[in-house]
């Protein structure tokens, strides 16, 4: 054993350890840009991950069709949800028409920005945090940058944390370090949506710093504060509420609009929205 410490093998291990430590320091200082070694690994790993994910999904589709089981129940629940959404769509269309008419009357101009979307597939998850961090198969060469918002037609998924040439790492709203400004649709009260390690296991997140107790079932959407996210993007619904430790504000458990674990494809909003720095 003593000879090992004087051997060439020990020296090589020390050299490798020093190199890896320098990688860690450079990576920590890179601020959202993928470290070049990681980019190198991605040139091999990402195509393999895409292949294995496609294969896994094909097998899951086949077994799902063979063993229908819960699909019938899910189908029924989705039909009911569809009916409810159709009813709300009619109400929305009526409101929109009267809104347009009123704007014309007051001679107000519409100022909704245009968003560009890049569609991406989910090809990997974080071994420790599960679906709190996901990897997608599009990166810098597709125009994706750090802090771009990631979404689906159902609502918010998360924010891009790191970009490589052909991949990006997305921090979803289940991650404890994720935070975004939000508001309750019924009361218009502002709060902050953040992830929680304990709740992420159940696929839920938290809404904090509410001035009054939220209504159960209330919709929560992004407030657009800070300019890093479009306003009005659905985040989820309130499941339960409680007073925070401070005793003056309330927090609520949210069920996200998207079942993050069940997602296969997402959309990344590229362009000006999402590039602003945190204050």
């Amino acid at each position, binding site marked *: 054993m003593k000879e090992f410490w004087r051997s060439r093998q020990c020296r090589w291990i020390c050299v*490798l350890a020093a190199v890896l430590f320098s990688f860690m320091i450079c*990576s920590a200082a890179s601020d959202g840009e993928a470290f070049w070694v990681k980019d190198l690994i991605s040139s091999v790993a990402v195509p393999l991950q895409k292949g294995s994910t496609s294969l*896994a999904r094909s097998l899951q589709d086949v077994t799902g069709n063979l063993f229908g089981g819960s699909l019938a129940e899910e189908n029924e629940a989705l039909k009911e949800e569809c009916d409810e959404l159709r009813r709300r769509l009619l109400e929305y269309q009526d409101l929109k028409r009267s809104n347009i008419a009123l704007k014309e009357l007051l001679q107000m101009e519409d100022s909704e920005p245009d968003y560009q979307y890049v569609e991406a597939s989910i090809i990997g998850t974080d*071994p420790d945090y599960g679906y709190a961090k996901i990897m997608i198969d599009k990166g810098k060469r597709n125009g994706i940058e750090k802090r771009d918002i990631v979404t689906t037609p159902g609502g918010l998924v998360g924010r891009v944390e790191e970009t490589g040439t052909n991949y990006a790492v997305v921090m979803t709203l289940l991650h404890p370090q994720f935070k975004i400004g939000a508001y309750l649709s019924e009361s218009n009260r502002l709060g902050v949506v953040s992830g929680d390690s304990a709740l992420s296991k159940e696929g839920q997140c938290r809404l904090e710093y509410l001035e009054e107790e939220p209504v159960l079932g209330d919709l929560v959407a992004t407030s657009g504060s800070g300019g890093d996210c479009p306003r009005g993007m659905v985040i989820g619904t309130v499941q339960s509420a409680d007073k925070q430790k401070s005793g003056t504000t309330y927090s609520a458990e949210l069920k996200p609009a998207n079942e993050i674990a069940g997602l296969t494809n997402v959309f990344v909003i590229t362009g000006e929205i999402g590039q602003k720095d945190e204050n």
Partner: protein
Amino acid sequence: MIFERKKPKVRYFAYAILLLLCFLLQVTPGVLELWGVKPILVVPAAVCIAMEEPVLPASVFGMAAGLLWDFTAGTVFGYHALLWLLFCAAVSLSVTFYLSRHWFNRFLLCFGALLLDGVIKTAFSALIWQEPGTWSFWMSQLLPAAGYTVFWCFPIGSLIRRISVFFHRSGGLDTQ
């Protein structure tokens, strides 16, 4: 004669393919997932290779496993590579001088490695970054993942043992 000379390279190539396969199974969403918990398959692969190989190849494979884990993990790039480089070197030295290649030792070393990694991460999360719910995350995610991963020591370890015995290294560690 040529095959005799190329045996180590072919053996290492087989290990590399197995490590890559473990990585793909580990990161593919929905595969091998039980109640929201996925195994970290590169760990038993790296530990079992380290138990079969001399210290330098063991360290290199540990580093490779760590680099693959770093690629999809949310930690600083190089953290797992450094941790596994040193841990696999320690495993290889332990097997050379103190421990036998008994199955119980494989499970123990694998679980111990995951526990060490979990403790470091939990310490950072809870004490430095002060993320909410860290302790319950430890109980509900990290500990079950470690237990589930240790289960995979058996099939992966068997495969690595077969590869090692098949190529029949000359000299070096005693077989058992």
